[in-house]
């Protein structure tokens, strides 16, 4: 079943001449893990905002076409209704943190309180989430007294705790340390296995190559939708869109150029390791 459908969707912000997104056609199946890539200004954030209905309801502009999310027509639905099934983690934690709670745990509980979740359950979900993101130590601190990366974790957690069907993440790990990034991706992968649909905008190709089912390349329109393998080994295409292939693919490419290997280009660590071990036999 398609959980997300875009039909001839276009969007122009008022005051701007061109379409930020033009003629988007797309269907995503329930439970898919989708990576969203593209250079800065390619419309990725706009696309993320449209799944929650911030576009067209919050930002002024012109919309064409249709978006159906979890059976709801975005144009005809309220953001409040859409947000029951879609969780959106913003790029900048400053935009996410409500400031309504004075502590990290209150911040995490905020959305649940609004839905009237019973106290016991709320407590348990906050505890579990703090544990999951490794911020138990900071539960009584104000989110605004945390470091940039810790704030980003709290912002992501405040979305995850709502148990959305569709989780939309806009550059969720941009400020995280390397292990923090790995933790967040591992967590998202775990959620994905429980049937949640993941839409993640990131240029971290190392992780997308391991986790994504499909990747969408944006450049104010959809340039290509395909498997990580097809997109992340298309070096010229990536270059054209100001993106880069990983060092894994670079080594694999050089092995081919030197006629040491005839395999198709590798995108992940284990794959390349095996390839080299065979060459070295």
């Amino acid at each position, binding site marked *: 079943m398609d959980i997300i459908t875009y039909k001839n969707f276009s969007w122009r912000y008022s005051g701007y001449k061109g379409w930020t997104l033009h003629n988007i056609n797309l269907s995503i199946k329930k439970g898919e893990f989708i990576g969203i890539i*593209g*250079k*800065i*200004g390619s419309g990725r954030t706009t696309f993320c905002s449209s799944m929650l209905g911030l576009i067209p309801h919050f930002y002024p502009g012109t919309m064409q076409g249709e978006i159906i999310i979890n059976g709801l027509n975005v144009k005809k639905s309220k953001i409040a209704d859409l947000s029951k099934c879609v969780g959106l983690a913003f*790029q*900048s934690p*400053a935009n996410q943190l409500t400031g309504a709670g004075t502590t990290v745990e209150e911040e995490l509980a905020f959305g649940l309180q609004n839905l009237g979740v019973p106290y016991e359950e709320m407590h348990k979900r906050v505890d579990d989430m703090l544990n999951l993101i490794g911020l138990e130590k900071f539960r009584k601190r104000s989110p605004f*007294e*945390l*470091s*940039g*990366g*810790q704030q*980003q*974790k709290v912002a992501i957690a405040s979305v995850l705790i709502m148990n959305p069907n569709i989780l939309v993440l806009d*550059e969720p790990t*941009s*400020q*995280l*340390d*390397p*292990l*923090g*990034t*790995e933790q967040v991706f591992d967590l998202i992968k775990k959620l994905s296995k429980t049937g949640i649909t993941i839409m993640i905008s990131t*240029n971290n190709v*190392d992780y997308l190559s391991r986790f994504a089912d499909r990747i969408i390349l944006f450049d104010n329109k959809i340039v290509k939708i395909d498997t990580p393998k097809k997109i992340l080994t298309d070096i010229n295409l*990536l270059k054209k869109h*100001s*993106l*880069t292939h*990983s*060092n*894994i693919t*670079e*080594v694999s490419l*050089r092995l081919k150029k030197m006629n040491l290997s005839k395999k198709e280009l590798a995108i992940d*660590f284990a794959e*390349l*390791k095996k390839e*080299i*071990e065979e*060459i*070295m036999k």
Partner: protein
Amino acid sequence: MTPIISAKKICFEYFKGIKVLKNINFEINKGEVVAIIGQNGSGKTTLVKHFNGLLSPTKGEIIVKGEPTLNKTVAQLSRISGYVFQNPDDQIFNSVVEKEVAFGPSNIGLKGKELKDRVNNALNLVGLFEKRKMHPLDLDLNQKKLVAIASMIAMKPDLLMLDEPTTGQDHAGLIRVENLINELRKDYTVIIISHDMNLVSRVASRIVMMCEGEILFDGEPKKAFTKNALLKKTYLKPPVITELAQSLKGFKKDILTVDEFMEDLMRIKKKKK
């Protein structure tokens, strides 16, 4: 030679009892490019904010170019050490790019041609001269970061401190930042705070690893990325190419680039023949 910055046994608490820096000793000399790495919340930003007086240590002493900072203002110190914020929106407030860049130098009394030259040079260096009449908020994130960097360059400090200069950048942005650092190193001493191990391994002459308010390692990049237990403790990972080399039999353990990797591969292959 007098170090540009010398931090002696500094401690810092934002709130009583929460020690963010614990007894830090740190020096940086002219011409160095030092990368400070470490997990989120380890005190990296807090440390460098001491170097231009945005923060003062609760204990210990900061010496900037031979003089204690205790009675100096941020305005005086920022002529020596310029800090570029992690989030450019925390820094930028003017409505025209060139005015934003001119703000600092005009505050220290520069006028006329001298001011204009400073601004234009800084904008040229970051590649934004063409956009000088634009509103900074109409720029994309890459470019906003570069405006923030340019406004510090225009102050001509001895030391430039770039906090997460590559956060949220696409590839074009990454390359621009890397080239910029390589350009800056000719005239400036540079500190970068970064989680981008690929960048750090390529540009830093020295790496400082922080963990829970302490410095656990201070030395060459090649040595830093072979200390796996330490990396794990500090929530860091070596660059992917280093990890690959370390996972394969016979390869050197301190490889930092694809070129070095391929060289080593050929060396091992030759030996096998």
